[in-house]
């Protein structure tokens, strides 16, 4: 922090040091809050909620990665979980008794990122010509293909151990500090879930930083141009082919890292965790949170992970009110979740926390932008005629 230099420049703009001090204080508060959060959760809500917080952070990484593809570059990807799976299996297979190999996570996390990025480019290259919903269905198919292979590659040669999955995966450990055991630091017992929480917070913060810098860079602006109107972007000299591949590759690498962490935290991976529903869930986090807005998608990930858990109370509530559980709480909570999606889209289609300044066009193709009423003093962003009834300009 630059507290010292802030004091010396107070004459020309006297409000700057105050603003900077405010920002510093806010940073300190956020860091302190995050440092205490696992213990507060532990005390108030129980160990399970610390675990849920860990899961939410892994989802946040996934949402940030998918947001690169869907939110920044406007490519609808319904098979994103495949990259998560690639990262998780890369870690699981190379750090478990399954093959008897135990490679350090310092090697495996980057390896997972690279492997996932390769798969991203592999998926991206044949689909570059496709737009909108066709792209969605091809990515969806790709995700299913990966899962089916994971499920069946236990014979003739046992690679993935099939539906049983890979078990006894090594926890992370760094310079003698194992994340898999409890430690006592200054009289405070730090359980594995706590240690992972801090690591995940750090990695999510890094992801946010990378994603933000990308968005503001030349690459990010080129992605925005492709998202709004690909033809125009190409006419402006943007290499749409390579940039779309880059979006797929970079987005996938976030998924790969998240997958490696998931394998380490969980200690176990199986194809069950990488179904299409999971892809859809991550997409919902991006869209409900606010597509194209990094902070928004992190919020989306946290809310959508916590909401189904919080809705578990409906079981005991029914018991208290009627003396009998009429509706299976798991079902009811899924129904409420579905209802939440419908209601959100009805009243806040741009998400809970939309990106400021992007308005309606952020989450849509050019035709929808043209269809939306332009704000006062703002020219419609696309003059593409609405060829058909639906917002299908990106088809």
């Amino acid at each position, binding site marked *: 922090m630059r507290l010292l230099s802030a004091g010396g420049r107070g004459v020309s703009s006297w409000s700057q040091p105050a603003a900077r001090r405010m920002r510093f204080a806010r940073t300190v508060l956020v860091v302190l809050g995050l440092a205490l959060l696992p213990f507060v959760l532990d005390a108030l809500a129980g160990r399970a909620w610390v675990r849920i917080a860990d899961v939410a952070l892994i989802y946040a990484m996934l949402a940030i990665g998918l947001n690169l593809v869907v939110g920044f570059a406007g490519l609808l990807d319904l098979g994103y979980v495949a990259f998560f799976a690639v990262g998780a299996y890369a870690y699981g297979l190379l750090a478990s008794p399954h093959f008897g190999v135990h490679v350090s996570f310092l090697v495996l996390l980057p390896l997972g990122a690279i492997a996932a990025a390769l798969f991203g480019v592999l998926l991206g290259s044949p689909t570059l010509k496709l737009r909108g919903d066709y792209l*969605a269905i091809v990515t969806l198919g790709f995700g*299913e293909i990966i899962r*089916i292979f994971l499920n069946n590659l236990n014979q003739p040669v046992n690679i993935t151990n099939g539906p049983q999955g890979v078990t006894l995966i090594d926890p992370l450990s760094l310079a003698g500090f194992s994340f898999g055991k409890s430690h006592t630091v200054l009289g405070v017992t730090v359980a594995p879930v706590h240690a992972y929480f801090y690591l995940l917070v750090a990695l999510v913060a890094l992801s946010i930083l990378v994603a933000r810098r990308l968005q503001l860079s030349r690459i990010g602006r080129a992605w925005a141009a492709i998202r709004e109107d690909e033809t125009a972007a*190409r006419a402006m000299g943007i290499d749409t082919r390579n940039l779309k591949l880059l979006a797929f590759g970079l987005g996938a690498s976030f998924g790969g890292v998240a997958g490696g962490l998931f394998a380490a935290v969980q200690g176990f991976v199986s194809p069950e965790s990488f179904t299409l529903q999971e892809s859809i869930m991550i997409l919902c986090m991006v869209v409900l949170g606010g597509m194209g807005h990094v902070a928004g998608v992190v919020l989306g990930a946290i809310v959508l992970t916590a909401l189904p858990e919080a809705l578990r109370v409906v079981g005991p509530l029914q018991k208290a009110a009627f003396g009998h559980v009429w509706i299976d709480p798991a079902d009811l909570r899924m129904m409420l979740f579905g209802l939440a999606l419908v209601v959100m889209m009805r009243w806040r289609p741009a998400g809970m926390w939309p990106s400021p300044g992007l308005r309606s066009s952020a*989450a849509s193709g050019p035709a929808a932008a043209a269809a939306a009423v332009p704000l006062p003093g703002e020219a419609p962003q696309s003059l593409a005629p609405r060829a058909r009834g639906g917002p299908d300009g990106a088809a």
Partner: protein
Amino acid sequence: MDIFIQQLVNGLVLGSIYALVALGYTMVYGILGLINFAHGDLVMVGALSGLALLKGALGAGLPLPIALGLAALGAVCLCGALGVLMERIAYRPLRRAPKLAPLITAIGVSILIEYGAAMIWSKQYLALPPVIQSTTWQVAGAAVTDLQVSIVLLALVLMAGLLWLIRATPLGVAMRATEQNAEVAGLMGIDTHRVIAITFLIGSALAALAGIMVLLYYGVAHYFMGFMLGLKAFTAAVLGGIGSVPGAMLGGLLLGLIESLASGYVGDLTGGVFGSNYRDVFAFIVLIVVLVLRPVGLLGTASGERA
């Protein structure tokens, strides 16, 4: 050779069912540009409600054909109402929303229907009581049941009827006009909201009938059965060229044939390395190949594409 013909027959039956479901996807996509994710779940509702009605009617002592007719009618009415309701409540308010919003809504509706069905009919696999006595014929070395023949025939009749409706009736003209340009169609005096509601009604009714077919053919129904079936049917619609009604029919039949031939032969061709458990992979690989070579699908037109 026998296996080939047998797989051909199985593929044709499966393909007819896919085609019926794919029609619902393609009609809605043609008019609204919306992937109605919940459409597959209507098939499930059709199957489960049909099963419940069939059991009820048989329990009341009605003869099988009447009970079956009543069950089909009830399922069609229920699914039709559900389809119209979901359009009215969930999709209509989103006509001008950003492109992904209706897709998310559709996913939400799908979850609602699935778990609603799980509450009503439980999460068990529900078996059809053994009331259907099918006759088996030997045709060119393959076993063909009368149930298979009736499924294919009924599907063909329904598809022919739909084509006639779209090509030759005032309602069909209104549907095509709405598909081409909803605003101008509105200016020409077409009640586009009504046309869209009717499109949902037709698609849902076809889905209900497909559900009854699945129920009779496979003998079980399950609250989650609509998911994979819907996915395949959507794949079929894209394969044929989404938005194109004949395309959905062709895509459905092709996908059914590809799947059953692939699962029948892949084990032999690869020396047992890949078995029929890779069936879904082949469906998706074929789809990807078709889309890479011809991104608008087999019968789709390139009008929506730019550059």
